[in-house]
């Protein structure tokens, strides 16, 4: 589904991501964890070309991602951000329909119907006409998820989706992600271990731009093989 080959991202002389090769299969839910500055967000943002990798190649369905086909390939990729990044001057419905109607040329009535269905599925049908500033954090993030789903993506990228939320709202996001599980490939960057444990099939642990562990969920939490991963788990153990 997605193949990364020797991805490097350099800022000045420092590597944020160094020589990473990975395969993500279809309908898999992957959590990339690690402390801040470990390069996990940078790696995620390379996948949909928000950041251009310094070297290395990205293949999506065996097609190489370039700046030319970026737009077409990235339609298959939805993205959810830490700070939601909803458009504050548009209401919830317009936030969902703006891009499909204006950028992709889809019909208004079909698009609106689809948006309403999605919002209903995520428990937001009362909020169609609300503006982002009138929503709670959890609602905003669910709207952001709906917005990313409007193009029927095969891949969803989540960049720290729970970091800006209160702990009691995180279960909203867990539920939302569970709704999508096994229907698309989801790559979730998070430093929230308990969250990662609950939603993922596979855990990738990164530190200093390198992958230190890449295991199935069960394997990672029951017998972490890498020393760094063990340390990390022990350090955050009391927070989870």
């Amino acid at each position, binding site marked *: 589904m997605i193949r990364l080959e020797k991805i490097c991202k350099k800022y000045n002389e420092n590597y944020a991501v160094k020589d990473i090769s990975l395969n993500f299969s279809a309908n898999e839910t992957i959590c990339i964890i690690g402390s801040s500055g470990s390069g996990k967000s940078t790696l995620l943002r390379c996948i*949909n070309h*928000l950041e251009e990798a310094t070297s290395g190649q990205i293949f999506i369905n065996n097609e190489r991602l370039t700046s030319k086909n970026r*737009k077409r390939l*990235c*339609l298959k*990729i*939805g*993205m959810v*951000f830490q*700070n939601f*990044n*909803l*458009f*504050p*001057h548009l209401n919830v419905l317009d936030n969902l329909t*703006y*891009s499909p109607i*204006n*950028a*992709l040329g889809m019909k208004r009535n079909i698009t609106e119907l689809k948006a309403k269905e999605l919002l209903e599925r995520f428990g937001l049908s009362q909020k169609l006409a609300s503006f982002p500033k009138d929503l709670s954090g959890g609602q905003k993030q669910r709207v952001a998820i709906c*917005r*990313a789903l409007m*193009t029927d993506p095969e891949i969803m990228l989540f960049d720290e989706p729970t970091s800006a939320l209160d702990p009691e709202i995180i279960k909203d996001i867990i539920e939302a992600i569970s709704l999508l599980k096994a229907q698309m490939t989801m790559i979730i960057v998070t430093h929230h271990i308990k969250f990662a444990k609950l939603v993922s099939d596979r855990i990738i642990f990164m530190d200093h731009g390198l992958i230190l562990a890449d295991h199935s969920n069960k394997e990672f939490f029951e017998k972490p093989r890498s020393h760094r991963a063990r340390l990390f788990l022990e350090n955050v153990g009391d927070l989870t």
Partner: protein
Amino acid sequence: MFEQFMAFLPSILFIVKGSIVTLKYSIISVCFGLIIGVFLAILKVSKIFMLRLFADFYTSIFRGTPLLIQLSIIYFGLPIVIGVKLGVFSAGIIAFSLNSGAYVSEIIRAGINSVDKGQFEAAKALGIPEALMMKDIILPQAIRTILPSLVNELINLIKESAIISMIGEMDLTKRAQLVSAETFNFFAPMLVAAASYYILILIISKLAKLLEKRLSK
């Protein structure tokens, strides 16, 4: 005293009527200035070096030379170079708009930069083309922060448009000068002109405050 005033009244009205001319120049120019400014601001934040260079060069030229000289070059100079004689009105509007565009572009550039980076990223991730993103996502958010500076620009233009009197337009300033010259009274006519400018600007400031309030809701 009253008779003196009544004798002067037609002159007062004559001067005050100049407000319309002054307003005409400033409002039309600020509109064109806005169009030029938006265009230049988008060049200034573009990724292409040559476009940024052009926009910065434009701004430095129009900010770095007096408006009076710019107007003189356009009105007196251009006919010599390209053989086209512009009317007073066109020359004035062109000079004020080009000049205003340079200032407005800086205001708008700052406004665009004040919009959260996440908005650009979200637009990109959703596949919204750059032009649409600017028009529908970024600029509507920038307008709130830049409105006070834009009003400032309009106010500046109202006062600077007095320069148009130099090439013979009958604006507030020119009319006050004419009345002064006719009556050998250099105080009262200028006072009337000053009061007219002041009231114009006062009204515009109040309107802008109202608009700001509505936008911030």
